[in-house]
């Protein structure tokens, strides 16, 4: 495998990172929105959030990519491939992150909410000054865990013709006829990205359980 093939793989890798970043960047604001709607006492906010979570957690990411890539153009939205993939990944990430953060928000004790209410804090301040910073902290390990899932999940974008790391590996492998070597390198690249993240997530979890025992 020469430098040309390797740089092709690295180009694919940069797209994998790019797609992960897009999915995460889109997933964070939408995920916060979904989580807040999900814990609302208002049915008109809570029910759509539950439906959103059910829909995108209950169907495969692959299908979501198909729908965004082939379905949206049928509805008259002509999007470049990366935009369709970005939409699908954002929807996917927001449903998982929303549910992770929903759990974290509800894990913050009732006492914190009551203290905020008793002080007369407005709803917005209660959420953003008191509840969310604490929820964010306890949800970090699960959030990092999902980041790893998302990074690996971007390989499915290959199916709709997107040349990220897996697809790039496929192309190089077809040229060189050495699938074992090429996919060995591709696998090592995924591992080099995912393992440090997983390790960081485990570290966060350990330091947090230590903190909780104090």
């Amino acid at each position, binding site marked *: 495998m020469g430098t040309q093939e390797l740089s092709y793989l690295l180009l694919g890798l940069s797209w994998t990172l790019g797609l992960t970043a897009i999915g995460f960047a889109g997933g964070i604001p939408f995920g916060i929105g979904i989580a807040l709607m999900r814990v609302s006492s208002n049915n008109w906010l809570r029910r759509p959030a539950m439906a959103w979570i059910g829909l995108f957690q209950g169907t495969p990411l692959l299908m979501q990519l198909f729908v965004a890539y082939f379905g949206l153009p049928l509805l008259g939205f002509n999007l470049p491939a990366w935009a369709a993939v970005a939409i699908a990944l954002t929807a996917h990430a927001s449903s998982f992150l929303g549910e992770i953060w929903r759990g974290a928000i509800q894990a913050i004790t009732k*006492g*914190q909410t*009551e*203290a905020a*209410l*008793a*002080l*007369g*804090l*407005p709803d917005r*301040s209660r959420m953003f*000054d*008191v509840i969310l*910073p*604490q929820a964010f*902290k306890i949800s970090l390990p699960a959030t990092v865990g999902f980041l790893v899932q998302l990074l690996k999940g971007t390989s499915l974008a290959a199916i709709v013709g997107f040349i990220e790391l897996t697809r790039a590996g496929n192309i190089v492998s077809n040229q060189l006829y050495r699938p074992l070597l090429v996919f060995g390198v591709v696998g090592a690249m995924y591992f080099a990205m995912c393992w440090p993240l997983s390790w960081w997530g485990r570290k966060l979890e350990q330091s947090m359980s230590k903190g909780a025992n*104090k």
Partner: protein
Amino acid sequence: MTNSNSIAKHSDAPAMIQMRHVEKWYGDFHALKNIDLTVATGEKIVLCGPSGSGKSTLIRCINHLETIQSGEIIVNGHRLTDSQAAVDAVRQEVGMVFQQFNLFPHKTVMENCILAPMRVHKLSRAQAEKTAQKYLERVHIGDQAHKHPAQLSGGQQQRVAIARALCMEPKAMLFDEPTSALDPEMVKEVLDTMISLARDGMTMICVTHEMGFARQVADRVIFMANGEIVEENDPESFFSAPKHERTRAFLGEILAHH
């Protein structure tokens, strides 16, 4: 001090808190039964009773942490209905101290104290910190302002919680078993803080079993059982001559342990 004296002391003062015919249910459980209670400005009330008697529920209704099914509650002229404006007004004027402190663990002592004054009263950070420092010193904890709650003892945390409530310059304070979660050696420092607050004329309702505190500061001691106010009197008469059998049984129980 006799019964008539202690009540007369505040009888001319305008009512700070009025509860009339208050009824509260949790599903089938009748938590508060026809509660009538008027607390005059500057008056100190100690609420006691066995667990499940409704005493915590009663004070939590006053700042609308619990809702009532019928009756009315008027706090400093604001009638507590479902109107959010009235609820907001009452919460700004009534401070609350909880059994479990409920400090914000991710914020320093100072940040705990300035959050509500900045967000609710729109004070600048400098103004809010000045007020906070004043009240932190008042509860003898001014030198701990930069620490996080977890670095403090239970007694210190509860004093911070009192200072945090005072920073909103409340007109009345509600204490929900403020010393029940504390180690015995820390109870006194919190009670001393509450006593000094009482001496300064704060209107207070305290749910507590600290009978020494009740004797020292209470204008009235109210005994509740099964969601009802069974008996109320000035502390001397309450402890020396309880009228009801249930009060006598309760006092026998708690005084046996002191």
